[in-house]
C-alpha cells in the first residue's frame, strides 16, 4: 500500500452466532465450541485446555485481545472479508490475524499430537491464502503480542511454510511483545542465510492493560479478569504515611517458579534475609522448573555459584523450604490482573520485579513490571537486560543513585543475576529508617510521577505507534 489505509480491519474465516471463531484453528478443535454453542466466553479457555491438554493453550480465544494498544484497530470480522472479496476494496488494510495466545508451539505444529505436526498454515482456508497472496492490502498477521518469549526457530517454521504454501514473506507480519525482535530476527535470518524477510513489530500490551486497571482502581471502580471479580485496591497518594517505618525491606511476588525466581529465593534463604521480605512462592504447587546440575547449564557456567544453589536446594527437596504467601494463598490461581491489594505494597519499600523472562532471549516486559509504578513503590528489576532503559523510554523514572542500576546494562545473564543478588543483599543491610527517608525523598518526584505516567498511558496519543506500524505496509 502506498498511502495510509483508511481503516485497519481484522478478518476472520468463520463466524458462529455471536462470535468469530479463531482463525486457522485445527477444525478438529471446534467440536468443543460447537458443544458450547460457539460461546467462547467465561471458562472456555480452561475447558479447552483440559480437553486438549498437551501444552495447547489455544489461540486467539478472545479474538481481539489487547490489540487496540497496537493500532487503532477496527474489529470488523467477517464483513471485512466480504468487502475485500466482492468489492476489491483497496483503501483499507486487512489483517488476517492468527493469535498463538500462550500456545505458540502448538500453533507452529508442536507437539505433533496437536495436529499431526501441521502448523497453523495448514488450517488457513485456500481462499484466504489466495487473498494473502494476491491482494496488496491483505496480510497474514501472527499476533503474538500478548507474549514476549520467542523461540527463534519459529521463524524457520514461518519461512518454511510460507514457501510451502507460496505465501510471500513480505505479506506476513509478526507481532510480539519483545523489543529486541527486529535485531534478533535480522541476526537470525543472516545466520540462516534467508533471503526474504517477514515484517516484525514489537508491541507493549501489558502497559495499556495495567494502565486501565490502575485507573479504575484509583477511581474506586470494580475490576475483573476472566471469571475473577476480586475486590481490589491501589495505594493512593493519601494512603501513604511517609513518616511510619514499614515492616519489610522488599516485596517480591513469585507464582511460577521460573529459574531466576527459583535461584533467587534459594539465595535469599541462604543469606538469611527472607525475613526482610514480603514474598510469595510455593515449591509444592508452583514448581514449574526442575532444578538440577544438568538444567543449570542453560543459565550459567560458574560451578561454585551453581553448587551454592544446589546445596541450598536440598532444603527444597527436604521440605524445609516450601511456601510463603503475601495476600492470596492459592498461588496457582493468582493472576496478574484483578489481584491487586494495596496492603501488600504498604508494608515494604522496594519491589523486586520478578519478570517472566530473565535468561530468555529478547526484551519482554509483562504486567509485573508496572505493578510498583501503580502502587507507589520503588523497584529493582529482576528481568532482561535493558529493561530499565525501555521503562524510562515511556517517561518513568528509576532509582539510580540509591540503587545501583548498572545491572541493566549487563547483557550476560549469569553476571546480571549475580550482580542483582549482591545489590539486593546490600539493600537488605540498609536500616529501614534510612529506607523510609529515601522513600519520602522520592515520593512525589518519582513514585507519584510514575503512577501518573502509568495512568496517563492509556489515553496517550498512539499516532506515533500507529504510524510506525502502518509503515510496515508501505
Amino acid at each position, binding site marked *: 500500500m502506498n498511502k495510509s489505509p483508511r481503516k485497519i480491519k481484522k478478518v476472520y474465516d468463520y*463466524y458462529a*452466532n455471536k*462470535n468469530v471463531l479463531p482463525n486457522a484453528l485445527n*477444525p478438529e478443535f471446534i*467440536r468443543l465450541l460447537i458443544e458450547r454453542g460457539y460461546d467462547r466466553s467465561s471458562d472456555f479457555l480452561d475447558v479447552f485446555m483440559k480437553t486438549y491438554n498437551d501444552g495447547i493453550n489455544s489461540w486467539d480465544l478472545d479474538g481481539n485481545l489487547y490489540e487496540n494498544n497496537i493500532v487503532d484497530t477496527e474489529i470488523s470480522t467477517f464483513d471485512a*472479508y466480504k468487502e475485500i*472479496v466482492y468489492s476489491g476494496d483497496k483503501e483499507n488494510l486487512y489483517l488476517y490475524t492468527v493469535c498463538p495466545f500462550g500456545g505458540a508451539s502448538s500453533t507452529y505444529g508442536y507437539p505433533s499430537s496437536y495436529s499431526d505436526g501441521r502448523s497453523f498454515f495448514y488450517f488457513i482456508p*485456500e*481462499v484466504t491464502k489466495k487473498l494473502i497472496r494476491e491482494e496488496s492490502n491483505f496480510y497474514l498477521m501472527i499476533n503474538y503480542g500478548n507474549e514476549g518469549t520467542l523461540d527463534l526457530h519459529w521463524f524457520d517454521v514461518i519461512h518454511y511454510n510460507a514457501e510451502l504454501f507460496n505465501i510471500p514473506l513480505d505479506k506476513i507480519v509478526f507481532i510480539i511483545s519483545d523489543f529486541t525482535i527486529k535485531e534478533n530476527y535480522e541476526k537470525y535470518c543472516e545466520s540462516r542465510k534467508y533471503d526474504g524477510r517477514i515484517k516484525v513489530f514489537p508491541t507493549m500490551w501489558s502497559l495499556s492493560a495495567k494502565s486501565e486497571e490502575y485507573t479504575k482502581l484509583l477511581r474506586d471502580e470494580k475490576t475483573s479478569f476472566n471469571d475473577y471479580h476480586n475486590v481490589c485496591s491501589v495505594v493512593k497518594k493519601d494512603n501513604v504515611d511517609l513518616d511510619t517505618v514499614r515492616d519489610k525491606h522488599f516485596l517480591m511476588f513469585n507464582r511460577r517458579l521460573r529459574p531466576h525466581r527459583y535461584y533467587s529465593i534459594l539465595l535469599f534463604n541462604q543469606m538469611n534475609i527472607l525475613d526482610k521480605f514480603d514474598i510469595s512462592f510455593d515449591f509444592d504447587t508452583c514448581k514449574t522448573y526442575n532444578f538440577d546440575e544438568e538444567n543449570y547449564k542453560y543459565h550459567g557456567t560458574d560451578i561454585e555459584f551453581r553448587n551454592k544453589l544446589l546445596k541450598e536446594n536440598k532444603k527444597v527437596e527436604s521440605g524445609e523450604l516450601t511456601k510463603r504467601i503475601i495476600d492470596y494463598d492459592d498461588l496457582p490461581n493468582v493472576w496478574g490482573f484483578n489481584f491487586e491489594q494495596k496492603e501488600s505494597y504498604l508494608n515494604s519499600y522496594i519491589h523486586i520485579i520478578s519478570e517472566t523472562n530473565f535468561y530468555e532471549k529478547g526484551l519482554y516486559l509483562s504486567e509485573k513490571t508496572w505493578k510498583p509504578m501503580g502502587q507507589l513503590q520503588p523497584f529493582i528489576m529482576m528481568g532482561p537486560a535493558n529493561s530499565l532503559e525501555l521503562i524510562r523510554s515511556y517517561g518513568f523514572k528509576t532509582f539510580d543513585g540509591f540503587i545501583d542500576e548498572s545491572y541493566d546494562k549487563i547483557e550476560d545473564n549469569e553476571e546480571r543475576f549475580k550482580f542483582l543478588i549482591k545489590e539486593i543483599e546490600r539493600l537488605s543491610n540498609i536500616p529501614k529508617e534510612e529506607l523510609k527517608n529515601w522513600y519520602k525523598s522520592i515520593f512525589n518526584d518519582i513514585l507519584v510521577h510514575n503512577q501518573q505516567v502509568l495512568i496517563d498511558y492509556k489515553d496517550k496519543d498512539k499516532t506515533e505507534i500507529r504510524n510506525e506500524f502502518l509503515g510496515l505496509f508501505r
Partner: protein
Amino acid sequence: MSGHKINFIYEIETPLGYLPMGYKHIDVPLIFSEINDKSTFEHECPVIYFGRQGYGSPFKKLQETNDFYSTVDSHVNKRLLGQLSDEEVLNDVNLFVITPTHNQTITEKIHTENISDYFTETTKSYLRTYKNFKIVFVDDKEGGLTYTKKFWENLRKVSKELKLSESQLIFITNTANIKEIYELYLKQYNINSFMKCSTIHFQVYDSPGNCILDYFEKSNSPDDLVDYDGVKYSIPYDSELNIKRSKYYLCMNRNSERMHRTYLVRDLIKNGMFDKGLISLFKSPRVDNECKTNKELNEFIGKTYPFTIDYEDAEFVAHLHNFFNTKESWMDTYFSVVNETTNSNKHIFITEKSIRPMIYFHPFIIHGDYGILQKIKDLGFKTFPEFFDESYDTIQDQDERRNFIVNEVKKLCDKPISEIHQLYQSVIPKLIHNRELLIDMASNNKKFKMFYEQVS
C-alpha cells in the same frame, strides 16, 4: 405481499458463505476442513461436503444447485442467529430451513438422523422460547417417497424435545397429498397434530414458465434455437399448431431403471404400437438382468432396446435441462404418453415429465401415481377426456391402471391419424390455456407467496 419479514437463520458463516442448516454438528469440523481446501469462491459445480451435495445452495458465490433458494433469495434475509436484533427476534418470522441434497433426500435425513443434532443448544433455546422461530423442511427435489411411521415419529420426537408448537415445525414437499398422508398417520396412531404439512409443486412453478418466456424473448422465428447451458432447445409457436404430424404419440422415458416405465413400453410394443409413436428407453443393468428371467420382457424390450429419440448418450441426457429439448419429436406427434417417475398408490408426485406436454402443446395421458390427474386438474390445468377415458386415474391396482392406459392409447392409435389431427385441433384452446397457466405460475412470485403463507 405484506406481513412479517422472513429471515433464514444460520449458525455458521464460512469463507464460502452461510453453512446450510441440517448438518450434524459432529460433521462440522470435517466440513470446515473441506472448505479450507477449496481454492476459490466460484465453483463450477456443486461442492460435495461430507457426502452432502448441494451445499452450495445458500452460498451466494457458489452455483445455485437448489431451485428453492433462487425462489426465495430476493425475498428473505439471511442472518446469523447471533446477529438478529431484539426486534427481529421478537417480531420476524425466523426460519431454520433444511433442504435436500442430491444424494440425501429430506425423508432419508428425517428417517435416519436425530433432527435435534442439527441445532446448537443456543438455537434450541430460541426455538423453545420464541414461537416465531421455526424449523422448516423443504423438499423441493423429491415427492415420490415413502413416509413411514419412523419418519413421522422422528419429527414428533424433535417437536416434543424442543417443545415446538404446531406452527413451529413445517414440512413442505412436492408430494401432492402430503396432508392426507400426515392425517392418516395421526388417525392411525390416535395422535394430535404436532406440525404443519403442505404441498408446493416446486417443479411446476417458476422454471417452466420462465423458460417459455425466455425462449420467446430470445427467438425471432419458429426455426430458432435458444441456448441453455450449452444445449439448444426450442418450443413450438402458436402458429405451428396446425402442422400435421406423422406419428400418434410421444413416450419419453430415457431412464429404464424404473421398471413401471419399462413395463409400459413393453405393453405398447406388445400391442403393436411401437411404430405408431416415438419411444425412448435407454439400456439399464436392471432391465438387462430381468430380461434374463422374464421371457416376455426380453422378447419386447431386451432384444430390441435401447430406443432413442433425440440423444443417445445417457450420461449427457442426465445433465440436460429437465424441461426442454428441441421440439422436433413433439412436433411430429400429437399427444404424450407420460411415464411418470413413480406409480404409487400412496403418494402423488407431479414432476417435470407431466409438465413438458403443456410446454410443447401436447394432450397427455399419465402413467403415474394414483390420483395424479386430479391433482393436475386442481392446479388449474386442463386435461383431455376428448382423447382418453380419464377414469384410469381412479384405478388403484397398478397393473390394471397400466393396462387401461395402454388400451386407451391403442384406441387412438387404431384410428386414422387424420382423425387424431382433427381431435388435436379441437383441443387447441386447452393447450394454449395450459401453457399460459405455466407462464402465469411463474409470475408475481407465486411460489414464494405460497411458501410465505405456509411459514408465516
